[in-house]
């Protein structure tokens, strides 16, 4: 069942690569939160109850509800246009993300480690690279944030793979989630949207070596 959820997780990556609207990204992030909730529920059997409850709360409340709502609010408040405006066509994005998945499959196979559940490894690594690719290939700052959130989801998946042995690492991951998302989104909400009217990364290129 975990594997099924994780495969759906990868499908969400593919879906996001051909999505045209920002709101679709938000929905996919929410979906990923729900999937992570399911995976956590199924995967972390051996840890203490209160810790599990904390993690579950984090995934479902923070990842699946709060952050997406917050993002939706940001989009509305800052009047961000709804198109995603990638640098590369969606077609190429799709090819690249498929390639990423294939390469991580091959990479995962080359690792000789019985402790590691390979499917977790594949999913987290491909999510990670997809997030990085998103940051590199999208124009808007808000899509950068979404790429970052996606990376965090990927890292969370990886931390779940070791979660039974070291639950404190999962907690650390959650701390990272909350900390970075709040910081980044906070800055975004308070400042960037007000100061920069059209939020393209092209506007954020004044600081450089001349």
């Amino acid at each position: 069942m975990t594997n099924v959820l994780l495969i759906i997780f990868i499908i969400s990556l593919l879906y996001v690569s051909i999505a045209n609207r920002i709101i679709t990204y938000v929905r996919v992030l929410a979906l990923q939160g729900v999937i992570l909730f399911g995976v956590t529920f199924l995967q972390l059997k051996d840890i203490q109850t209160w810790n599990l409850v904390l993690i579950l709360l984090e995934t479902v409340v923070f990842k699946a509800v709060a952050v997406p709502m917050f993002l939706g609010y940001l989009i509305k408040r800052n009047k961000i246009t709804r198109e995603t405006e990638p640098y590369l066509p969606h077609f190429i994005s799709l090819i690249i993300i498929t390639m990423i998945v294939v390469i991580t499959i091959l990479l995962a196979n080359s690792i000789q480690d019985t402790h590691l559940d390979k499917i977790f490894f594949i999913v987290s690594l491909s999510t990670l690279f997809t997030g990085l690719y998103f940051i590199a290939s999208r124009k808007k700052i808000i899509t950068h944030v979404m790429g970052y959130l996606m990376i965090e989801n990927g890292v969370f998946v990886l931390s779940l793979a070791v979660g039974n042995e070291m639950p404190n690492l999962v907690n650390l991951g959650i701390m990272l989630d909350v900390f970075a998302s709040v910081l980044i989104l906070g800055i975004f909400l308070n400042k960037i949207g007000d100061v920069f009217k059209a939020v393209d990364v092209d506007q954020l290129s004044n600081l450089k070596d001349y």
Partner: protein
Amino acid sequence: MLSIILILFSSIFFAGFILRTKSIASGRKGPGIMQPVKDVIRLFKKGTIYSETTSIIFRIGPVIYFSSVLMACMVIPFGPYKGIVSFDGDFVFFAYILALGKFFSIISAMDTGSSFEGMGASREALFSMFAEPAFFILIGSFALLTGNTSFFDIFSTLHLGSSITYTLGGLAAFVLVMIAMIENSRMPVDDPKTHLELTMIHEVMVLDNSGFDLGLILTAGYLKFAMYGAIIADFFIGGLSVSFALPLFLFIQLLFAVTVGLIESFMARFRMNHNPQFILALSSVSFLIFLGVLLVLEKFL
């Protein structure tokens, strides 16, 4: 032999069910279930008009298109019964014989020298080209899963047992439904019922066909639907005995028809330049099926 009879049988009602679903979804009563078949019979009786530009290609095109679809149907098995033609790697033959039909339908559209039909032909070639790898990866994955390479062997040894195999079956059904939609140029890719400028793939290719030829082309379309329906059904009825398989087969065909109708009722057509990425996404989904197969086979350590 049984399979082709079943496919022919379900193809009679298929288009009718789609139409009926669509009319119910839009709150109309709609025509009878047999109306599409009656239309085809009416077309068979009619005379034909040929364009002066056309050559022999235009006359043989529909015939070869129809024959290729019929031939492809012969490859499909039904549960415990083989198709008429069955050998190792027959699905390659299946895909390529369909390609032959497509080849002739495309060049017969080019034969009219019309700008509209050329446009349709070009898009048909492009989109069906993108759909090929999805089908091949899909069947290749199941060939890997079962260790067999013919339709019959794959389906008869395929056991859906665990949650992950059900997911694979579901994903495969999704991919096949979408391939069927692309092959027939139906809703998410093209809307067959809109005005000419908006309907740009299959319907526009057959603008100049009339009479018997048009009837053949329409029949081939219904057959294609029933054929893909049969493949989808085969994913789930492989190991069953006939008494279970037969109703299940008909039920899946019905379900497929209703699904197509619902998709056509509630989805909007994509923009033409978004189609390639959508169709290629099917290949990526097939790739995930492949990943799932690897998981089931425990190839990861």
